[in-house]
């Protein structure tokens, strides 16, 4: 089973809303969890600066959501590279999945692998998996399990489901949560 984690960021006012969807090999949903929106104050935005997005996404959203899962996920998939920093704090392999190859240096290529996607017509297409630095072994695990998954589902599609679900739930979740 795979867990897809997705964060929706609303720019004005700045809000972070996240969801995690666990699907089985055929792409059917098995577990879904989401958070109420996190809205940083103006002072927090100033003080956290460019680190804000990464901090909120990983510390406040990704880690609690992954830890709250009841079903065991073999793999956690995300769409943003900065979320890979959370790998140190979770037990499952954590990989970024994207439909285009990153233009980074060759040194970064060892953290990346391509998964071919079956196509009816035209040239074969691929999605790309990327691991956190120092966790290159995650790629091998990801490569194996994703291969099963792509036969049933396009690997970026579940993120779309999460986004739609969050859009629907957002009005309900506004204002929930507690202060520390």
């Amino acid at each position: 089973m795979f867990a897809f984690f997705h964060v929706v960021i609303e720019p004005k006012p700045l809000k972070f809303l996240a969801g995690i969807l666990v699907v089985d090999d055929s792409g059917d949903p098995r577990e879904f969890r989401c958070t109420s929106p996190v809205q940083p104050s103006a002072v927090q935005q100033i003080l956290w600066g460019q680190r804000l997005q990464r901090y909120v996404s990983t510390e406040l959203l990704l880690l609690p959501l992954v830890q709250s899962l009841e079903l065991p996920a073999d793999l956690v998939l995300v769409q943003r590279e900065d979320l890979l920093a959370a790998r140190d704090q979770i037990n499952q392999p954590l990989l970024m999945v994207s439909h285009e190859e990153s233009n980074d240096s060759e040194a970064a290529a060892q953290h990346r692998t391509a998964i071919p996607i079956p196509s009816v017509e035209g040239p074969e297409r691929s999605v790309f998996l990327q691991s956190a630095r120092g966790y290159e072994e995650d790629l091998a695990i990801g490569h194996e399990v994703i291969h099963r998954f792509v036969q049933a589902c396009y690997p970026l599609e579940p993120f779309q489901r999460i986004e739609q679900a969050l859009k629907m739930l957002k009005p309900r979740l506004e204002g929930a949560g507690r202060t520390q």
Partner: protein
Amino acid sequence: MTRPGQKNRLLSAVCDLLWLLLKPWLRTPVLPRVFWYRSRCKIWETERDPSQADIDKDQSQDPATRIWPERSNCDFLGSPRPRFVVVKTKWPPPEVKRVRLVVLRPTIHAILAEQILLRSPSIDAIPVEPFPVPAIVGRKRSLPRGAVPGKTGDKSVSRGEPLAVCGEPSLIPSELWTRLWEILSSPPRVEELIARKYPDRLRAYQVEGVQRLIEKERFILADEMGVGKTVQVCVALSLLIRLARIKTALIICPKTVLSVWHEHLKAWLREAETHPYSHVHQLRLAQREGRPQVWVVPYSRLAKRGAALTWGSNWDVVVLDEVHEIRNPDTNKHREIKVVIAHARYRWGLSGTPLQNRIEELTAIFSVIKPELKLQADGKPLHQVREIIRPYLRRVRRKDAVPDLPPKQRQEFWLEMDEAQARAYHAVRNGARTGLGGGRPVTFTHIWQVLTELKKICNFAPDSSDSPKLRKLLEIIEKVVARGEKVVVFSQFRAVGVTALTHHLNPFGAAVIHGERTDEERHQAVRRFQHDPDCKIFLCTVQTGGHGLTLTAANHVVHFDHWWNPAVSWQAEDRVCRIGQTRPVTVYDLWMKDTVEERIRKLLEVKGLLHYEVIECLSDSEFKKLFTLDDLLSLLEDGPLAG
């Protein structure tokens, strides 16, 4: 920031020299020039524009403001972000400056006077408020006992077991979870998705078209005009976005149909940001956004050399509306589009003109849409080429696709020129005859000019705003409007057609478009005609309004004059007689007796060019090539045409 007054310039110069000498020994080689104020002012920075009240009040009470005491080393000023810096001086009054704080070298004057390098900064503590802990809600899907996950074969939605909820258990009611599981379920097949998303909104051939666009990836929809090619593309884009297979799409179309795409995308594609009147700078801004993007640009934007550099080649889908625009491989347009489309997974072409009859153009079109086919149509028999391209091209005829389309009736009115028209007509014709008989070589261009001039006189005599055609037109319109119905009036001329008629038709609330109107004005005119009950007339040149538009609010069409190629007029009528039309359509043709209009019509009849199947695929210039010089000269003569 400016230096204070006229203070000792000589000293400054000496200090600068000392700076150069001391530079290697300084620990912090660069510091902001703002230090000039430090000895006699108070400085602070803020993210927002401070008001006078903010400046006057004690800034230390404002948690959003960073207070910097007079004697700090102000290292924050190295920030590359523009800040508002408030400089509070005793005299002159406090100033607010919006500056980009570039770190500059300090002057030695500042270093010596303040000994800043020896001081450590004093920083006020700002209380950091903690982030609220977000509530987590969720559900787990329950499987039937003994079922193997993923192999239940049951795609129906399970209600799922509720999970522990932090805070409020009733945050998400049970019925909402049922809907949520539908969203979270794996996407169904394309046909299921269409049935679910567009129940009863698409016809069977449209569903098939959408499926083939998605499955084939590189495909040409060559359905006849008015059967909904645009809708099929919008639905296909919507489904691909839903399936997360695409993020960006570029639609390239003729300028006149930009508004049509705008309307259709608004109605059928809500999942994406659409940019119908787009500019390159908007493209760059939008590329940073996360939502799927659909861009619509006219061919003219891509007709310039180097346009592909601007529009890039990172599109997931490229749609070429009126794909025959790229039939000439030697044009810039063809070359640039080939670059833009290079990496697109989905390449779709749309064209209402059948491509089967135009073998030599197919090579160029398929070299863009499906280059891997390596089609070399030239010299091959037609049936062989048809077999090759059959999997990648579909044509649906309107009579097959929409058998329930209301009938179209045609009424022809043959009118006689008034005295002024007859005088002007004969003067021009006789002048031309004399000129042609003068022994000079006769050219096509010269004869076309004369014929055009004669056709203009058939509309209005020079310097006249009245004519038999106008009177007949007004008579028709009055009858139609009295019944509460609407009319579309086409003319091929702007000055002696649309412009001359505008004044007479304005009392009926005419929406007018012609070549000089902007895209937005055309779009507004179409919207007004379709939705405003007081707007009874749509008046346009056949070139601008004759293709791409949907004008089904009307059920009457008047051809005030006629284009050389009758297929152009027929296509113009199809703006009204198309899907969405529920009433019978009446077409009125206004002709002038014993004029070039009558002779042209007879010539077309004699040459067998009044059959749709024969001429539908011909461009204007190709159509004109069907006439010989003798054919055209015969139009200027009296008496019957030679069979």
